[in-house]
Every structure is written in C-alpha cells, then in structure tokens.
C-alpha cells in the first residue's frame, strides 16, 4: 500500500459560531481521484480552502508527502504543487481571459514586463484542450457563468500541479462541456495527477472517482471505494438517514393555459449571429413543468430574462399571461403580473450580502409583511421562518448574515424568496446549481407541490437527468433557436443532446 500523498489529521475550523469542520482525518493516495461528498454546509469547501492555503488558521495538521505543511498563503500551496478550482468564480472582469489565466504568475520578459503574446498563445492552447474557442483577448467580464467556469478550469490546469482540487467545477456546465472536462481529467490522471473532486452530481462522482469520502456537519463519516458502494449508500451517509426515494408523487393534471409566447426574438447587436433568441414560441399550462434544455450559451438564460423583463435590450414578439398581453420592461412589472425568476448567477444577482438570512428571504414579499407602509417584524419573521422550515435551510436562525451559509443553502433562501410571492409562473434558471442531493429532492418535491397548487413552472438546468425527471414537456434550444419540443414520454438524453448540438 503506497504512502498517502495528503494526510489530513484532526483538522477543525470554526467560523464565529458555526463549526465548519470538526476533527476531520483521512488520507488521499497519490494518483487517485478522490471524491468528497456531503450536504450543503458539510464543510467540503472549507476543507479544500485549508488544503490550498486560502484559510491559514485552523486546528489540526496537514501532511503532504509525509511532512507537515502549514501554508501561509496560496503561494505556499502552489509551491508544493497544489492548485484549486474554487466553487465561487474568482475572475477579474476587467482583464482579458489570458491575463486571468496567468494572474499572479504572468509570463515575463526582462524580469518585470508582461509577455502578453506568449500568455495568449499559451491560453489558446489551454482553452483548446477544453475545446473552447473563445479568443483569449476577450474581457472575462463579457463571458457568461459557464464560459467563466471554463476559464477557471483552464487557470487551474495552467499550473499543471500534481494535486488538483476541483470544488464543484461542473455546477454551471452542461453535458457537452462536462464531457470535455472528463477528457481533460483523464489526461491529467494519465500524467499521475492526484485529484480531489467535489460534486453534488452522483453520476459524475461514480463515473470518475476511485474513492469517495463523505462529510456531514463538518465531521468525517466514511471513505469508500467507488467500486464497492452505490449512490444510495453514499446519499444515506451524507444525509444521515434513509433518503426518501426520488418518487415525486403523481403528476398534477395540466390545467388551463397560463402563459403563451409568440415568436419572441432578442437581437444581439455587434455579433455575427445577430440575435440571442429567434422566434421562440411556447405555451405553458397550469400545473405543468416545461423544461428548457440546451448547451451553454444556447440562450436559456436570455429567454427567461426576456419573460421576466430583465433583458438589457427589449425583446420583440408577444408574451400573453392569462390571456392578457404583457411585455414587461422591468422585473417589477413581471413580478406584479405573477412571474418569478430565480437567477442562475446567485453570487452576482441573488444574495444581499449585507443582510441576514431572514431579510434575504422576505425581500420580495415585504408588502405582505407590512401593515400599510410600516413593516411588522413579527410578520416578516413568520414569512421567513415558513420558508426556512419548508425548504429545510441549514442556518442558525434568521439573524446570521447570508454570507455565512453554504452555497446550496443560499440558493434555497433565494428559491424561498420567490415562493413567498405566490407566483402564477415560476421561472427557475438552473435552480439546483450547487445544491446537494437531499436539498435537490426537496426542491423537486416542492416544484411538484407548486404544480399541484396550479402554478406553472419553467425550469432550465445544466443537468439533463434533472430536466427529464422534472419536466412534462422539454423544449430544446440551439444557438438561440427552438430546435425541438418533446413530451416526457418521447424525450431521451440522446435525443435532447442531438437536438441541442
């Protein structure tokens, strides 16, 4: 048995009141792909931040190649060959893609000068290895989440370090890109790179990993060989109880037509294609879930933004809600009309970091919490509490700042925020991004519940299985055009991917 390349010994970490990690110990063997699973807030990212020198004060010990390592910064970690892809995006939007990839380790000439040409060449190489053909001179800020995440991956790869930590690298990627990532990972492993891989997507975990470690509430639960276990067991270990099977109960019968969209188009000035969306038409009925599939950049977000009046340019076409034509030009109009949008970019467009959990949840339904113009804190608390319990949000009450919650729990808060507005139509853009299995199951059940209450739902997702389980009908976008519309019966993964590419 080879000696471990990473040995984690009784590592503990607290954040103020919350205990993120408690005496976690396990080994990582050289050259293996070691998956780490756990619910939202289990402490996965925290552990990885310690491992990569982002968090420097913690109890316990970390051994790399047998000798103790105590990093005082990310540089130290890199110097022993550890690099990380963070869960949250960390790009400088004002800099070019190449500059971002080599940020902090610029290729130089004459010791002090940036060698931009060399960096762009190298960046192009890296991006090609990810089959991504965006020109590296483009500003990172002009990219969408998905593309940005690819840049993050490229950045980590550029270090070609021997230990690579990936914290939910695929959360914003769709099948196609995930496939590319798999190929890259395979290449890396053939070079003997050790990989620590965090994901909430069971299929990925089992497809990739040799061994799986499970954390729960900051504590080490178990390490299993992927061969000798199954999703069910891992999930059970994560949640600590038998996870209810993913049977979401009977589908609610479709009611009357709520929403109708007639050839909706959105122009895209200064781009070869000329449009972001072209002649999208769809109908949505009470109690049904319409899934929208497509590759990254197919226009799913734009479509939802248009429906919600949040697109930067006004779209053309017709949007008819309950028989009345509406063309919202501001989210407030859409909200009043009975639409709700959970955005895909939680960090930028979702949370209010200066506010606490309760305030974040009640943000859109304050008028219900108010008597006239005055807010009633008790009512507001009641509203927020209802969602915390309904969505089982893992938080110490309503007062902690939202920032102290784990990614997944933040996402739940935002979903809750919109559920409180009792929408007629709920638009969910990648609602389960970075949400753990347990929470996912709950979200699915909630969505179903809403349908049975007569609410209509449009959901996009970067995970096809999710779309397939949830949707009654599935619409596929390709390059901003509507390329197919399946009923659940006819839909299959292969058909969808085919229509999307």
């Amino acid at each position, binding site marked *: 048995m080879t000696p471990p390349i990473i040995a984690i010994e009784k590592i503990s970490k607290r954040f103020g*009141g919350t205990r993120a990690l408690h005496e976690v110990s396990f080994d990582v063997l050289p050259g293996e792909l070691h998956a780490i699973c756990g619910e939202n807030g289990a402490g996965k990212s925290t552990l990885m931040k310690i491992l990569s020198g982002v968090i420097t*004060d913690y109890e316990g010990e970390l051994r790399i190649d047998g000798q103790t390592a105590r990093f005082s910064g990310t540089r130290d970690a890199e110097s022993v060959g550890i690099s990380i892809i963070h869960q949250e995006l960390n790009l400088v939007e004002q800099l070019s893609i190449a500059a971002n990839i080599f940020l902090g380790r610029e290729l130089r000439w004459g010791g002090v000068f940036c060698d931009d040409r060399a960096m762009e060449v190298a960046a192009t190489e890296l991006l090609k290895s990810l089959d991504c053909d965006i020109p590296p001179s483009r500003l990172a800020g002009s990219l969408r989440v998905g593309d940005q995440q690819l840049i993050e991956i490229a950045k980590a790869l550029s270090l070609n370090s021997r230990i690579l930590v990936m914290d939910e690298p695929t959360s914003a990627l769709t099948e196609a890109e995930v496939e590319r990532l798999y190929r890259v990972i395979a290449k890396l492993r053939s070079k003997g790179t050790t990989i620590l891989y965090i994901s909430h997507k069971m299929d990925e975990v089992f497809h990739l990993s040799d061994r799986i470690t499970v954390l729960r509430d900051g504590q080490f639960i178990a390490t299993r060989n992927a061969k000798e276990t199954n999703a069910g067991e891992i999930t059970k270990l994560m949640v600590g109880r038998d996870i209810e099977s993913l049977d979401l109960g009977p589908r609610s019968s479709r009611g009357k037509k709520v929403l109708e969209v007639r050839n909706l188009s959105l122009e895209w000035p200064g781009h070869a294609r000329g449009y972001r969306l072209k002649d999208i038409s769809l109908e949505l009925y009470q109690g049904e879930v319409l899934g929208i599939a497509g590759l990254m950049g197919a226009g799913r977000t734009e479509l939802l933004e248009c429906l*919600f009046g949040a697109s930067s340019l006004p779209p053309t076409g017709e949007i008819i809600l309950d028989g009345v034509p509406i063309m919202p030009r501001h989210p407030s109009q*859409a909200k009043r009309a009975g639409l709700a949008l959970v955005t895909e970019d939680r960090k930028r467009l979702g949370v209010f*970091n200066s*506010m606490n959990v309760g*305030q974040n949840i009640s*943000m859109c339904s304050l008028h219900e919490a108010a008597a006239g113009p*005055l*807010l009633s804190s008790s009512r507001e608390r009641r509203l927020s509490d209802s969602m915390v319990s309904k969505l089982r949000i893992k938080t110490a009450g309503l007062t902690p700042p939202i920032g102290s919650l784990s990614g997944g729990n933040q996402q739940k808060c935002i979903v809750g925020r919109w559920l409180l507005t009792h929408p007629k139509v709920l638009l969910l853009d990648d609602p389960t991004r970075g949400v753990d299995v347990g929470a996912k199951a709950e979200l699915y059940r909630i969505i179903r519940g809403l349908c049975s209450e007569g609410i209509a739902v449009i959901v996009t997702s970067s995970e096809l299985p999710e779309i397939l389980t949830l949707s009654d009908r599935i619409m596929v976008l390709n390059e901003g055009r509507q390329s197919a519309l399946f009923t659940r019966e006819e839909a299959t993964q292969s058909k969808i991917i085919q229509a999307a590419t």
Partner: protein
Amino acid sequence: MNNDSPSLLGRLWSSVEFKLILSWLLVVIATMVLDSNHTYWNASADSAQIVLRQTVLLGFFALGSAIIVISGGIDLSSGSVIAMSATVFGSLMIVLDPEGFKAGHVYTTAVILSIAGTLLVGAMVGTLHAWLITSVGLPPFVATLATLVGLRSFSRGLTPTLTGGKSQIDFPDDNLRNALKDVNTITILFIVFALALWFLMSRTVTGRHLQAMGGNEQASKLSGIRTDRLKWLAYVIGAVSASIVGIIFFADQGSAKPDIMARGYELNAIAASVIGGCSLQGGIGTIPGTILGCLFLRTIIDAVQKIVGAGADVFEGMIVGIVVVVAVTFSQRGTGKLIGKRYFSDEIGWSVIPTLGLLSGLAYLLFFGKREWYAPYQAILVGLIVIGALAVRAVLESRTNSSSRV
C-alpha cells in the same frame, strides 16, 4: 454589524451606537478634567447649546448624506447645495417682496413662498442628481462632483444679478432672522426630521429597499425593486436636507455669501455618517448611528477648543483626523478584536513605525513645546519612546500566532 453574537446584550454591546455613546462620554469626561477653565462645569448650559446647535446643523445634511450612502451612492454636493439654497432663499424674497426686503420686513406670505420655493429647488437638484445617475449613467461621485463645482458658481453668478452688483445677500428681516436661527426651533425641527427618516429607514418597506439597493443593486432590481425611483428618493432627501440647512444658515449668519458659504461641508457630512457606522460600500448604516456620529464629531471639535485653549483652530484638524481614524476603527470591530489584532506584523507595519514616531514627536513639539531650548530634545525623546514601544509591540505580535487579519 456582525450579528454573530446571538444574545441581545452582546449585540447591543457590539452595536456602533453603543460604542459611540461610550466614546462620547469618554470625550466629555476628558474635557471636564483637562479643560483648565472647567467650562463644562461653569457654563454647562451654554456649552451644551453650542454643541447642540452645531450637531443639529450638521445632522440635517449628514442624515441626508447618510441615506444616500446607505443606498449605495455618495453626495459631494451638500456644501454647494447649502450655499445655493441660502442664495435662492434670499433671491426669492427679493423678487417676491422687494420693498419689504429693503424696508426690513418681508411679508409672511412672501417668506413662506420663498421657503417653499427653496425646498422645491432643493428637490429639483436632487432630481437632477438622480437623472444624471440613472438616465445619463454617471457614477454618483462624478455627478455630484459636477454639481459641487457647478451650483456654487451658479449661485455666485446669481447674487450680483439680483442684488445689483453685490457679492453677498444680507438677511433682510431681523425678527424673521431670530425666529429661523433660534436653537430650540431648529432642534425641534431636527428631531421631527430625524424621527421621520428613522422611521423610513428602519420601519418601512421603502427603507428596506433602499438598504437592499445599497447592498446589491442588480439583485434588488431583479427582485422587482424600482431602483431608479429609490435613487430619486435618496438624492431628493439628500438635497432637500441641505436646502433646509441653507435656509437656517442664511438666517444664522445674517448673510449669504455663495463663494465661501459651507465650503467643504460635504466631507463633514460624509465623515459623520461614516463615523456613525455607515459603510461607503452601501447597504450598511443607521439613522441613530449617524446622529451620534454628528454629536461625537462636533463634541470632539468643541473639546479641542476647550482643552487646547489659545490657537486651538490650528490643531483642530489634527485631532479630528486622529479621532476619525480611532472612532471608525473602534466602531467597525469589537474592542477585543481591536487589541488582539496585528498592526505591525508585516513590512508595512514595520515601515510605518518611524512615521508614527516622527508624527508623535512633532505633535509633542507643537502642543507642549514651550520655547525652552531643550524642547526639541524632549520631542526627539518622545518620538524615540513611541518608536521603541511600537517596535516592542511588533515583536510581540510576530511572536503570537493568532492572526486575525482579514
């Protein structure tokens, strides 16, 4: 605003307001002890009145500025808006009741109309700001910087046109003057104003939305909040509050001289709100905090006057500067953290030590350096002592491993 500590007492203790009250008491007591004339004992009422008047006058536009800061903007124009409002108020009275203005008794209706008109102009300025920011798309700093220079010069142009070539407008009506500048009146007015704003920010939906916009504008827009209208509201409140001050100032100073009136006051307002716990990143801050910030700032200035005695004006800035630093640091972090924190642990920490030594040495020279021949040597000694002390601290810090650097 770290809500980590659950207990209500703990939260109170860690609240900016509480800390400000403490530090304020500290300053007052220090003044009572150090002031050789014992002014706070002998003339308590008068002293209180001085501080009160100043706090109220600053408070009016500091609150306006605070609301803008909390909602994620900034207003550099308050000083100029004050000067402009004073000028406009005067001009309107001239226009509406020329005889009365000369005679020294302006008709009440004319006065009321003039006040209303001035406040309206204030609201218009606020609208202009909101428009420049939302529709034209300028950053608030730039938009209000433009009005900072623009409005003052505008008022300077206006004055001679209306007074027939004079560079200032003298206040026409003595009774009116005494009525408008009376400290009780303006205090009551301020209390009402402050209560209203406090209600707005802490109890109403709009207030919450303003806070949200300050925290994350895009997110609040996507939550269906009309951010444009909110900005309009914030900047109108800001400008109108400055207009009120302008009217009172005109009365209080007996003349409106646009070129120097309230020059640079915008920074006082911002300083007060920051001391009061508002974050310039937006989203954080309270009305009571800002009021306490004003009180604290004005008390410090008064204390300097009392303690230093002759030539205090020269040193005022220094002391205010130091106090601002200390107060903001103190109000941002818990006392415990403050002491545990590492200040001199890195290159910057080391390299600042000589600077601090030099400063303290010179400060000693300026404050206590009577003209004795050995004064400079004393100063050098003081400087060296400070350097030594800090060096020791630096060593201790580098020993301990418990960094709480953020």
